[in-house]
């Protein structure tokens, strides 16, 4: 009999499921990929076959113009892979379509979370705690300084500032997939019914969310409207456009950014942000440690972010853990 868990192997370019000869979130093109969600550090085009939720596949088709070998799996559905491996997609609460992938083989259970959060999000179903032997968790905000405040507080900050400057607009930098739609949906939930203006790069993803049943209210494109029409409005753009020439067409914008990094003053200052909104689609420190406790795996594998601190926490709490050295890049914009 093979050594325990020898069938699953962290390799630099992704987690290798050996008997099925496939990879989870590989960072280079492979024959067969299991993809947790549509962000570029997890999903990419060019795979022979891509197994993901229908929402993630739709996002990938839109972003990477790839639909070859798309194999949809519904939440809760289990598919049988070659070599006797079962894969089950479980909601991760990160963005539309995001899933944890439960892999089972020879009675051993491994969960790869991709990215996740534990907060309410009107655009996707919540994270489900699922028991397993090995829990592969992200650690983007894996430092005890990260504590995301309730989103209602951040929405109130945003709407207060908007109300105080009816002659200006508030320009919110938000990641084009997930964060932007969540911010818009939360604004609607907070009672903000006015049209929201979009940077052109956001339009298609917002339409995709709407097609998947997420109500975003009235959206308008900045390009179709005059400066005066946008006074007193909220404008949403990708973070890269915040200080770009593009913003010159807006009425004296107050620069805001929705990101977990905004918790750190210097990070906000570096990006010239006047109104930092601490809103993240990743688990904060409290959620990461609580999740490790609730899942209660034999062993935790930590990746994507500040592995050191979470590793240290596991050590202090007598939980087995190791840090993975996966090739990827920092999610600077979340």
């Amino acid at each position, binding site marked *: 009999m093979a050594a325990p868990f020898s069938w699953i192997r962290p390799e630099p370019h992704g987690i290798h499921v050996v008997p099925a000869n496939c990879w989870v979130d590989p960072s280079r093109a492979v024959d067969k990929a299991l993809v947790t969600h549509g962000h570029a550090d997890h999903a990419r085009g060019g795979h022979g076959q891509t197994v993901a939720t229908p929402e993630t596949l739709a996002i990938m088709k839109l972003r990477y113009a790839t639909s070859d070998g798309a194999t949809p799996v519904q939440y809760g559905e289990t598919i049988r892979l070659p070599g006797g491996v079962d894969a089950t997609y479980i909601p991760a609460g990160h963005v539309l379509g995001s899933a944890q992938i439960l892999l089972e083989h020879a009675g051993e259970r491994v969960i790869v979370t991709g990215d996740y959060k534990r907060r309410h999000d009107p655009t996707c179903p919540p994270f489900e705690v699922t028991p397993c032997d090995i829990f592969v968790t992200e650690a983007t905000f894996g*430092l*005890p*300084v990260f*504590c995301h405040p309730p989103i209602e507080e951040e929405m109130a900050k945003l709407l207060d500032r908007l109300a105080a400057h009816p002659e200006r607009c508030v320009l919110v930098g938000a990641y084009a997939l997930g964060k932007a739609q969540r911010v818009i949906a939360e604004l609607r939930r907070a009672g903000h019914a006015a049209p929201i203006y979009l940077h052109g790069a956001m339009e298609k993803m917002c339409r995709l969310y709407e097609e998947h049943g997420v109500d975003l209210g009235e959206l308008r494109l900045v390009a179709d409207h005059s400066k005066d029409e946008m006074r007193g409005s909220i404008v949403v753009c990708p973070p890269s456009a915040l*200080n*770009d*020439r593009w*913003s*010159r067409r807006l009425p004296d914008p107050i620069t805001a950014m929705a990101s977990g990094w905004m*918790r*750190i*003053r*210097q990070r*906000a*200052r570096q990006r*010239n*942000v*006047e*109104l*930092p909104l601490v809103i993240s689609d990743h688990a904060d420190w409290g959620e990461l440690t609580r999740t490790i406790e609730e899942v209660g795996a034999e062993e935790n594998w930590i990746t994507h972010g*500040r592995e*050191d*601190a979470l590793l*240290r*926490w596991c050590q*202090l709490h007598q939980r087995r853990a190791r840090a993975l050295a996966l090739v990827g890049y920092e999610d600077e914009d979340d």
Partner: protein
Amino acid sequence: MEEFAALIDALVYTRSRNEKLRLIAEYLRATPDPDRGWALAALADGLDFPAVKSSTIRNLLKDRIDPVLWTLSRDFVGDTAETASLLWPAPEDSPSPPTVSEAVDQLGGMNRKSVLTELPRLLDRLDPSGRYALLKLATGGMRIGVSSRLAKTAFAQAFAVSVEEVEEYWHGLDAPYDPLFAWAARGEAPPDIENLPTFRPFMLAHPLEEAVVDLADYAAEWKWDGIRVQLVRAGEETRVYSRSGDDISATFPELLEVLPFPAVLDGELLVRGAHQGGEAGGAASFNALQQRLGRKTVSKKMLAEFPAFVRLYDALLLEGEDLRELPWTARRARLEALMGRLPDSHFDLSQVVEARDFEHLAQIREGARDDAIEGLMLKRRDSPYIAGRRVGYWYKWKRDPLLVDCVLMYAQRGSGKRSSFFSDYTFGCWDGDPDAGAELLPVGKAYSGFTDEELKKLDRHVRQNTVNRFGPVRETDKSLVFEVAFDSVHESKRHKSGLAMRFPRIHRIRWDKPPHEADRIEALRSLIRD
């Protein structure tokens, strides 16, 4: 404390000076005494609580959180106070924040031992923003981009008084400045500053530009390239103030025991150097003076190597008599008569430059070789000493700037309103013959001297001619020539070229000039005057 914390947070995220002024002024109007006085002190000068040090905070935290997690967090955040404010365990009860003055009283009462139990009690009463504000206030440096001058200007704006008057009272008062608020905010009598060594706002000059003045009405003096200072002695104490009203006495201790009578004197602080000017007791270049600036303590070696002295321009107050209403000629006579009573080791007189007429004066100005001379001052003979810049009284007539042609190499985004423009430019000169493979070496950086229209064109040029990106910096294809104006050039280790310019600004954009015709490093080096 919540309002103060909110103010600090707002200031952290605000780049615009006007907006900062508005925020501080609004706070000062809305906050009761003495809280607003303490807050003003924290913003303007920083408060000092000897019991609370950065290391105190670190030690408190390491008792409450795993040291490894503390260090990882501190390294990531980059600021001890901020890290501590975020990591401090949230109290179970909803906090009842102290007022600013309550916090200041308690901090002031702590010693090295009691701080370990009392500071935690204060922190337990605050949320993360409040903890940040408290720890910043307790450890002195706020470092939120608010200068002492800005805080005073905001105070003046809040209560519609003149900032010059605020400056006059400022150094005679201690935090929380109750007499200042009594006067400005509550309409009471102004603070009594007699017998206090307080700062009197400087009289400033306008640039002469193209004007011509009649020397019958105006006297000329050299404009020395040091730092303008005010030397004040009152109540047996001498202080040195910089042009912005900062107390820089600690930086120049040799000047604190040499003024033998009560007075307020205006002059140029210089250091003696090998380079001898046209005057007795020559001054070294500004480069030498720079060795002395910005130091809180001064070594004996520094004092010996770069001894400071004051070249006097004017007398404002003399042994209880206010001379400021007198005409310049009368003040000048008093100052000249005074020189015999001052030690020439530390004082000399800025000489009046005699000229037959304006044209002759222009020739003298052209011929000035001394590097410590920045140009000429023209002072109307009947001018009183008035705070600030009044048209028609004093003019500065700077030596013509030096000019070289440089090539644009790198551009960086500006801040605030300029954040979407590449508005900060690094430029270079050739290290040899450009046609024989010479390279450009950076010689300086400038972000002024062009119009808004020109900025748009420059921004477009940078975007269309980018060859490399390094984070916020763009490297351009080095196709554009700037005629750069600057006041002087010195040896410097900071640039690879070994040269550094003083006050570089874009003089003209030479869209027409091919880059290989720009100047060489050697041409720039030949302009070094010291």
